[in-house]
């Protein structure tokens, strides 16, 4: 364990833990858009920047992104110093110029007293904040179906060659992790469409309810050792079957096969 000071309060944290986790455990709110527990820290949005110093640094301070900076013994952290607030405000102001309609950014900016960007609005701005959560979560699950293309200000998230992504299984992880709901999909109970590709949904043999896409089912069967017929049953069909096949409860917490 290490001991550090956050906003004047002594706190203890696990060695190797990131500052942001320690800060949030103290109930301190700081914004972060590219951070998510499902993926490795990335350090792109810079909103979680905090000010750090140490007693023996002779007054020297540094600004670091707390999502990536491991806790250290004796670290003195300010999460809302004047400099830090200026950095956050500027970043939110810049975000608003690019993504004026993204609700997440609007709300975060409002908390810092900004309702309109003071910069020139970016032509063709959209709601994508380039946090990279979608591509990283897709990578992490092993599909690596989408990626960023281009670079700099023109960078965007896209399927390869701008066509229906061959490695996508339609699992929706990207759409669900997207903090600004920029990634769109449709799902009519039979077909799911995302990234310009259509996926057939597997249906429950008992209730006819859709479960997951055929491709996702095949992937799980192959990589997770799940029986092939698992996805041809929906939640309630599984429950029903379980109730039928499992025996009565003999005493709390123990079951017997029928």
């Amino acid at each position, binding site marked *: 364990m290490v001991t550090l000071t956050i906003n004047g309060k002594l706190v203890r944290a696990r060695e190797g833990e990131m500052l942001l986790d320690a800060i949030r455990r103290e109930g301190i709110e700081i914004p972060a858009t590219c951070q998510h527990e499902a993926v490795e820290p990335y350090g792109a949005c810079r909103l979680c920047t905090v000010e750090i110093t140490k007693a023996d640094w002779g007054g020297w301070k540094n600004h670091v992104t707390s999502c990536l900076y491991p806790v250290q013994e004796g670290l003195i952290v300010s999460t809302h110093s004047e400099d830090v607030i200026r950095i956050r405000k500027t970043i939110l102001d810049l975000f608003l110029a690019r993504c004026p309609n993204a609700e997440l950014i609007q709300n975060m900016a409002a908390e810092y007293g900004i309702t309109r960007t003071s*910069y020139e609005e970016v032509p063709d701005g959209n709601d994508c904040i380039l946090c990279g959560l979608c591509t990283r979560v897709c990578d992490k699950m092993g599909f690596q179906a989408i990626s960023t293309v281009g670079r700099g200000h023109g960078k965007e998230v896209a399927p390869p060659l701008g066509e229906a992504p061959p490695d996508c299984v339609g699992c929706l992880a990207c759409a669900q992790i997207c903090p600004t709901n920029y990634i769109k999909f449709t799902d009519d109970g039979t077909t799911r469409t995302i990234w310009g590709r259509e996926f057939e949904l597997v249906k429950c043999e008992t209730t006819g309810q859709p479960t997951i896409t055929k491709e996702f089912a095949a992937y799980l069967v192959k990589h997770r050792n799940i029986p092939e017929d698992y996805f041809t049953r929906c939640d309630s069909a599984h429950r029903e079957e379980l109730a039928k096949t499992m025996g009565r409860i003999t005493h709390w917490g123990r079951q017997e096969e029928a």
Partner: protein
Amino acid sequence: MCITSSRQLKQVRKEFLDGDARFEKKVMICCGTGCLANGAQEIVDEFDSILRKKRIKGFTIEAVRSTGCHGFCEQGPLVIIEPRGTFYTKVKVKDVADIIEKSIRSDEVIDKHLYTDPATKQKIERYPDVAFFSHQQRIALRNLGKIAPHNIKDYIANGGYQSLAKVLTTMTPDDVITEVSKSGLRGRGGGGFSAGRKWRSCADVESDTHYVICNGDEGDPGAFMDRSIMEGDPHSVLEGLAIAAYAVGAKEGFVYVRDEYPLAVVHMQKAIEDCRKEGLLGENIFETNFCFDVHIARGAGAFVCGESSALMKSVAGEVGEPRAKYVRSVVKGLHDQPTVLNNVETFANIPIIFEKGADWYAGIGTKKSTGTKVFSLVGKVRNTGLIEVPMGITLRQIIFDIGGGIIDDRPFKAVQTGGPSGGCLPESKLDLPVDFDSLTENGSMMGSGGMIVMDDRTCMVDVAKYFTDFLVKESCGKCVPCREGLYQLHKLLVKISEGRGEESDIDRMEQLSEVIVNASLCGLGQSGPNPLLSTLKYFRDEYTAHIRDKRCPAGVCRELITYNITDECTGCMACISACAYHAITGQKKKVHVIDQEKCTKCGACVAACRFNTIDVR
């Protein structure tokens, strides 16, 4: 054949020098990029074709050497005749027969090819006497222009690989690092981090695999020293890299070369292959336990790959996005293994440190910036080219003594160093000693050594806009302050340069810059506002002129200038035919007039006018 000892190196050297002793004269033809562009290869070919037909006593085509860059690119193609050092400039193919006849067959010096000193108007015969060369001290560039870069034996004959032999057979890795630390050598790629300390931190990391990488990406626009070294003396880079590998315990190394430098790729590749053949790369080098091999990785055009973590991703075949650097690459670099990364010039300095000793090296330059630095002296300076000078020399000495002052004797305005991460220094800083720390203290930086001289016709708002635009295009786009911040900074500069600026814009740019500096992920963003901040610091009045008076004092920003023909016009009609937009009218021997409605400010008339009578302001 395999070279396994220092004695064998000496044998190779002796054989080579004995071979050379057959020749009464040797001809060195500069085949650096600049000279090649001006036809150096055709000159080499002409020597070859003449010498095939003609026999000359004590001279054959083998005595004609295509060498690396001499640095004086402005005057190329350059031909030097040794042993006298007779220095011919701007040589053409048709001159070759004459040179062979007069200067090789006999000892005549052909005056018309000699360099004329612009100050004294005197012809100078030998190149060491030319001011451009006489103020230099060549260490990293020691072999450039002297040896044939594609011939390993020429390198060995000049003492090459003796340092590697000495290091491997008589020193421990620890000794090597101590020696490099003692030399005070700081990385020549940008920040100026101590090479010895970097090597030590890497060597101290326990791991089965360590890597060494030579950065030859040279993304700084306006710098070409690494290109010239890789093209003109690739073995010194390899030898330095091998010494580093031994010091940190690496078995594998990479040379990361810009793909825009095809000749550098070819010469490095040839050098690596020759080393493998001679046993200077591979298993048990010099019969020791040291095994080392080098591969080339070609860069694909990304300035951000100057950032170590981005470069390493690129070497691994990935997108060059930097990683947040709370873990340094000496600890977790290429493939997450401890890695030493230095640039070409840094490695080129290593062999000579072991040849002449760390104390010798530390005695050159200043206390905190030892040794020499190579600069590419370019822009509005008379003698452009590649120079190497001891650290601590003043900007004035470089620009006026070596560079010969400003073209057309116009007033000096600024010198830009450090590339897009650096800044512009004004006339009041001309007596600043050039070293890592004083440049940084004054708002610029050493960078990789671009030195761009600017005169009164260079607009500082335009320069800031230029660099910011460059960085917007080169930003990897990962972090917000850099991607969006530099974009907005550029927008503000465009606004000012187009005459739409407001007084408050300067404050806004300064505030935004501060956030970009403090909050960006990597060095590209952190130093990105430097060109803007340094021009604001030293040339604020130019910004005010653009904003308040809607005027570009240097006559550069198109929206704020007009072209006018002065009364001195001789009426030669050259501008009329040069103007593609038919905006100029006039009769012979009468003052011409520009129709402002039609004028696109393309500059063709100014280039065509021989009497300097077109006024741009």
